[in-house]
């Protein structure tokens, strides 16, 4: 049963009861449906009136409370509102190139009248690490996010670093945020300063705050994965990373059927919903009772799908794209996003905030990594479809961002856009020439900055921030292979390569192993379940030996591959050191950890060409990929870092940054052009 219908009964039933009590007054009735409509309409009117009156009545009390809380502010607020526009992966180096050509007028204006500079990122410069440091202002050893994945040292298995999911004793599913420390908006809340935080990575599951929050990166799909698409076709394409194949069975002329798998379900396999595809002059798809028309090679609108698991219902949304080919149709279904209108998992705070957004703007992608890079890499969708998807997600985000800007006039508004990151990952090799996807992306992000400037008022501070920059990724570095060939990693007899999860590693002969995008871990005695390296001098010696060996690594043309290798103790200080790697490897431009070794695999060669569509990256030496810091206010400090953003925001809004924060409050001053810019806008 549809939620909205159920909700409508919530209004109709009380009315029905009222009518039951007053049968003689029921002469305005005009039949079920229309009658309910008119009665509901009346209730809506009454509701609007009552809430407005209530709001006006309690407003003075709330203002008083807020004023009292604000009176405790240790500093005088210098900004009316701080707007943080997060552009994931927006590179200051690439943007500067366009600026020098006279492009990106809004960024040019910020650079001329306010600030535009490089922003030092974390080591490594990976989104979950950098955005965690952005929100907590501490180094990874204090927030415990060192990479997308971390190692389970007992089982030698990679697990998600930011969230732990599972089922409790009552079989009820739970999700726990593994990021430690406190985001800076929590400190704002203590002084009655409201925050609207949209899609900042590593905020799932959402933590309470004074304001609204919509979770970003690491929100799973309803299957519990970080996003797995479905390919429905007649022929099996073989194994695919990031997606699954479902056979499409013919059941009539130009009619196909299949079962779309949903959440895990019981031992019998996942819960499914039937799907029926009709092709020909008109392409139609029926799924879970919804019927939609499909245009070839174009993404459909969001379709609501309800999976029934016994009495439990799991609501999801997905989009479809049909490719008609000679050997039959090929239907792509996006990952089954949590339906924001009726979320099966908590994705916002308060929990009805996602519902508010979905009602105001329609369904939107809720998955952490919503742009389907795997589907493009696996040639399941084409470039046009990928770009259509990426830009439609951008538009959804833009809509909710501007809604927050219009609703929250004081305090903090922070929103992160991922489109910039995904497009650069997939189209970096196209460069910034006119008409290229990268060029379009930089121009549209610049437009977004311009539109944001128009929403600002006097004393509002805009901070454009990116977590890292971008560079090329043409060669894969298989760190596990290198460790094996250098004698640090042992394999069981007969094992030559490993697909994933270290299956085949002889731990009794392994001193070090690699997992994740830049980390090398020692097989430390007392820490790893089968550790053999003794802590202290021995472990230090092994790390020195590995670092020295990696720095000497050269490709076929003699170019160095690794620029630096940092021991954890040199760059991290904090209580969660043990969860991170022992050595962080910084690669030169073009080189990155290979696809296999990221998840505990080991390939046949140390260096091999990256043949994936994913050809741009930032998981290199973090000095190569700084983020951007731009503002309509002028920055007086040198060498800002991503850790500094939180203390800066606190300070601008009158809150003393707590001592545990490692960043410093940057000195931002209203520039002479700020007011002029706002007036012009």
């Amino acid at each position, binding site marked *: 049963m549809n939620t909205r219908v159920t909700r409508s009964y919530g209004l109709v039933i009380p009315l029905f009861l009222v009518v039951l009590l007053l049968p003689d007054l029921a002469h305005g009735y005009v039949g*079920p449906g229309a009658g309910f409509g008119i009665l509901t309409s009346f209730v809506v009117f009454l509701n609007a009136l009552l809430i*407005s009156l209530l709001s006006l009545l309690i407003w003075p009390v709330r203002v008083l409370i807020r004023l009292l809380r604000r009176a405790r502010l240790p500093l005088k607020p210098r900004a009316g509102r701080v707007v943080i526009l997060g552009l994931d992966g927006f590179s200051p180096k690439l943007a500067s190139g366009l600026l020098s050509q006279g492009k990106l007028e809004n960024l040019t204006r910020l650079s001329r009248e306010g600030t535009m500079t490089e922003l030092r990122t974390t080591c490594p410069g990976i989104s979950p690490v950098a955005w965690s440091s952005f929100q907590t202002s501490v180094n990874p050893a204090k927030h415990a996010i060192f990479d997308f994945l971390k190692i389970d040292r007992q089982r030698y298995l990679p697990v998600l670093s930011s969230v732990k999911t599972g089922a409790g004793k009552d079989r009820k599913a739970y999700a726990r945020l593994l990021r430690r420390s406190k985001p800076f908006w929590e400190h704002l809340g203590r002084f009655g300063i409201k925050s609207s935080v949209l899609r900042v990575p590593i905020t799932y599951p959402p933590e309470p705050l004074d304001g609204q929050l919509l979770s970003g990166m690491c929100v799973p799909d309803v299957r519990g994965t970080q996003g797995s698409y479905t390919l429905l076709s007649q022929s099996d394409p073989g194994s695919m990373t990031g997606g699954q194949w479902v056979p499409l069975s013919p059941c009539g002329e130009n009619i196909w059927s299949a079962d779309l798998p949903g959440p895990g379900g019981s031992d019998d396999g996942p819960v499914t919903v039937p799907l029926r595809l009709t092709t020909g002059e008109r392409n139609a798809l029926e799924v879970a009772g919804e019927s939609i028309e499909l245009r070839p090679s174009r993404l459909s609108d969001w379709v609501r799908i309800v999976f029934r698991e016994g009495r439990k219902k799991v609501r999801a949304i997905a989009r479809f794209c049909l490719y008609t080919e000679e050997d039959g149709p090929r239907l792509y279904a996006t990952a089954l996003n949590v339906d924001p209108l009726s979320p099966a998992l908590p994705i916002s705070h308060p929990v009805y905030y996602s519902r508010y957004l979905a009602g105001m703007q329609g369904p939107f992608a809720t998955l952490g990594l919503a742009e389907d890079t795997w589907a493009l890499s696996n040639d399941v969708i084409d470039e046009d479809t990928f770009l259509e998807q990426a830009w439609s997600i951008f538009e959804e985000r833009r809509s909710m961002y501007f809604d927050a800007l219009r*609703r929250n006039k004081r305090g903090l508004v922070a929103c992160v856009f991922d489109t910039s990151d995904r497009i650069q990952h997939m189209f970096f090799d196209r460069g910034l020439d006119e008409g290229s996807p990268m060029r379009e992306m930089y121009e549209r992000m610049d437009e977004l900055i311009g539109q944001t400037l128009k929403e600002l008022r006097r004393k509002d501070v805009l901070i454009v921030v990116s977590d890292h920059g971008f560079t090329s990724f043409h060669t894969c570095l298989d760190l596990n292979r290198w460790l094996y060939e250098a004698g640090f990693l042992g394999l069981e007899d007969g094992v030559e390569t490993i697909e994933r999860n270290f299956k085949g590693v002889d731990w009794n002969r392994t001193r070090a192993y690699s997992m994740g995008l830049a980390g090398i871990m020692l097989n430390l005695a007392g820490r790893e379940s089968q550790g053999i390296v003794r802590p202290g001098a021995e472990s230090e010696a092994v790390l020195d030996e590995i670092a020295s060996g990696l720095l000497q690594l050269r490709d076929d043309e003699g170019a160095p591959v690794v620029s630096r290798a940092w021991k954890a103790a040199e760059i991290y200080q904090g209580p969660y050191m043990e969860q991170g790697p022992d050595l962080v490897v910084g690669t030169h431009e073009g080189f990155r950890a290979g696809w296999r070794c990221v998840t505990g695999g080991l390939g046949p060669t140390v260096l091999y060409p990256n043949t994936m569509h994913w050809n741009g990256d930032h998981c290199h030496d973090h000095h190569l990929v700084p983020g951007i810091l731009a503002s309509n206010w002028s920055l007086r400090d040198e060498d800002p870092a991503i850790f500094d953003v939180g203390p800066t925001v606190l300070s601008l809004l009158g809150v003393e940054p707590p001592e545990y924060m490692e960043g410093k409050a940057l000195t931002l001053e209203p520039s002479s052009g700020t007011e002029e810019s706002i007036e012009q806008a």
Partner: protein
Amino acid sequence: MGPIIVVFNAVFDVLTYPFSGLQPLWGLCFVSVICGIGLIILFRAASPQEAIARIRRRMGSQALGMLLFMDNPSNVIRLAGGLLWSNFRYLALVVKPLLVIAIPFMVVYSQLEARYSRAPLGAGQTTTVTVEFEDLPARDDLEVASLSGLDLIRPFVFVDTLRQVSFRAVVTGGPPRALSVMGSRLTVGRSREGAGAVHRWEYDDSWSVLSLLKPWVERVRGDSPRSPVGGAVVLPDARYHVLGGRWSWLAVFLVVSSATGVVGAFVLKVKI
């Protein structure tokens, strides 16, 4: 239109036939259930379901938004304004199905009113009958006689200005109960227990669409200029004992058909 009225009457006769031996309340409930289902299906067919769902979601969001941003009265007022505007748009969306539904609903309403709004006359009960003429006959020329189930009670009261004659009648049997006035046969009250309550007559030899809406009116074909052209019989309002109260037929219909409508919308996934 004559045959259509006959068909409609027959349909309702058939629908209520199984309940003719029971209290009229059962027949009324049954017809209300059928109507609830029929009208909700019609509503679905005639309404833009997706647009209704969308606007309702928006209205829900605007209400949630008022709670979310309650701190800021300008937000609340803006959202309240938006909510009212959405409400108007919602009403505009239901106008079309409302109009479509109104047509069958009027017919149904009329039939139900004809059948269930008046209580049947029991033996010994007295009623007042009024007959209208084109030209009021002289007192001596008035020919009124009971055909079945009634005894007429004199005197006959002549109202010259209205060209009416009124008199009382006491029920002695039936149904059917009928009178003959200047040679025309007039039915009084229910033609059969549980179905059909004629309490007005009109002289008309043609049929119009409006006839469908007046099934309680008996069409009288006068075969002479002296025949009556109209009239009425006073029947008591029907009251139904439900949940300890005395409900009108409309209240019973409203509650039962609405309940059926809610269940129907739930089962058939109709967005209302």
